[in-house]
């Protein structure tokens, strides 16, 4: 499907996934992500949908389906994403290509189910135990959700790993006019399960031999996973940079918060990472041109920590908490940041 439509973000995920060739979806109902499941049951014969008993079952079913050759996806929100973490690590370990959509809501715990947030950023990078190197994409409009969903599938196929598509409760339920722009699809080269004698194991391994007591095997495995995802991520270095003449402040924002940040694009430059992880080196380069860098995000300071580590200097920070995204709040925050850095 291409053309202009009025859609909500969650529907754009479903349309993008179908366009990308989705074969298999397993999920569990959760606000504010359920519409993705609702949309996908409308494709019988095309997408096999399992409503599982929980998110743990959902992610594991996706790993199984992916190894069996399917393009697989699950969709959830914070509490379910927390439950999926062990299974995401499994997906990286057995190199299962799949897409996990996290429509973020206010946490911790049950939090504010119907309100959007950006509190899962560090979880999607480091939520599972051990070392892994996920590709994470975070669009900020319904049009972009459609396109980035397809990119997420492509990145999963190329990296043979779970890719996270982040959205948030604001974007998931945001209805707006969307332009559906397609991108070419990547196909899988790995042979699906069956017909050979491969042993996919969650243990540290070399080839299909478990090597659970060999440090060098683990070192080689982790180095290979890191190199593989870094190579693929380089082809998905999506971001938006809006410079403005004479500006000395660079705002860094993404997802729903970036929509509010656009209000200040006349006075401040804006950098919007779409590929949230691995972090974009381009930000380090661009930040050099600005006296101050201010991160605006819907959490108590997650990406801010990483931006500071990336650009090696303190950054200003405007938290948007409790589901409220107000221009007035950003205005006040900016005033404070200006005072602090003058």
């Amino acid at each position, binding site marked *: 499907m291409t053309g202009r439509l009025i859609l909500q973000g969650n529907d754009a995920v479903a349309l993008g996934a179908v366009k990308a060739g989705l074969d298999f979806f397993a999920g569990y109902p959760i606000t504010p992500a359920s519409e993705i499941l609702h949309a996908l049951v409308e494709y019988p014969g095309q997408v096999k949908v399992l409503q599982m008993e929980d998110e*743990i079952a959902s992610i*594991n*079913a996706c*790993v*199984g389906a992916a190894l*069996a050759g*399917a393009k697989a996806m699950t969709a959830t929100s914070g509490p379910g994403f927390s439950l999926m973490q062990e299974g995401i690590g499994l997906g990286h370990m057995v190199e299962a290509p799949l897409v996990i959509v996290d429509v973020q809501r206010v946490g911790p715990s049950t939090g504010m189910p119907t309100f959007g947030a950006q509190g899962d950023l560090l979880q999607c990078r480091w939520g599972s135990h051990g070392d892994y190197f996920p590709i994470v994409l975070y669009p900020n409009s319904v049009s972009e959700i459609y396109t980035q969903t397809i990119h997420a599938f492509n990145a999963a196929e190329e990296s043979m790993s779970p890719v996270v598509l982040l959205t948030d409760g604001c974007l998931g339920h945001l209805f707006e006019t969307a332009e559906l722009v397609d991108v070419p699809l990547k196909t899988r080269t790995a042979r699906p399960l*069956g017909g050979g004698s491969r042993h996919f194991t*969650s243990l540290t391994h070399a080839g299909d031999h478990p090597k659970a007591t060999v440090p060098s095997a683990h070192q080689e495995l982790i180095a290979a996973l890191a190199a593989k995802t870094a190579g693929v991520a380089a082809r998905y270095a999506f971001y938006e940079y809006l410079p403005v003449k004479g500006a000395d402040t660079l705002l860094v924002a993404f997802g729903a918060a970036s929509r509010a940040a656009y209000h200040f694009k006349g006075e401040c430059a804006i950098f919007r990472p779409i590929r949230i992880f691995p972090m974009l080196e381009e930000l380090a380069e661009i930040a050099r041109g600005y006296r101050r860098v201010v991160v605006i995000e819907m959490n108590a300071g997650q990406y801010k920590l990483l931006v500071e580590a990336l650009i090696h200097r303190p950054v200003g920070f405007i938290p948007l908490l409790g589901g409220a995204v107000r221009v007035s709040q950003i205005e006040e925050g900016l005033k404070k940041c200006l005072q602090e850095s003058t």
Partner: protein
Amino acid sequence: MPARKYLRPERLPTYWCPGCGDGLVVKELAGAFGDLGMDASNTVLVSGIGCAARAPGYFLLESVHGLHGRAVPIAEGIKTARPELNVVIFSGDGDLLGIGCNHLVHASRRDTDLTVVLIDNQIYGMTGGQKSPTTALGVKTLTSPDGNTDRPVDCQALVKAHGSFYARATTFHLPLLGKALRAALTHRGFAVVDVRSQCPVNFGKRLGFKNAYEMLMHFKKAYRPVAGEVDRLGPGEIGITR
């Protein structure tokens, strides 16, 4: 022997302790594959974590060794994506009836066409001998030094609640185990073969059994085969239900 072509002798000796029952179950399953002439290229093994979960590594078939308790949903994903594959799960009592019990109940409810081989040794063997979901009342383990007070999970009741196939055998009653495995593999829908097995190192020793042989002789005395197919097996009965 037709079973041999499904196995990987180059991976021997196995990872298991001397006297473990897991190897007997591997041999019987490979034998059942051979008896049924199953297509190795179309058969996939799935397991979670635990001693029993290491079994797929000894088969010359494609296999997935996943997460503790999650063999069933991984297998459901595989079977749903590729219904033409025969999908067989190896699991233990901790894996299937403890951490993964929720999945057992729901896969049975969905009647997904899977065969589950449950190796029930009534103990967490791999981690050193803690009480498991099927440890009998009163039994002393590492974590029940004064005797287990938790009632054991009734696997048959869970599976039969949704009308799924359930069979019970022991590692002493190998012909019956072979028959149960063949029946489960040819059953269309969710099927569980519950195999009472011995863990001489981390369980038998604490119960006063000197070796695996004594445990097998105990199974011989404690379990009574039931002929034909019945609605439900009583305590101490082994056989096939439909």
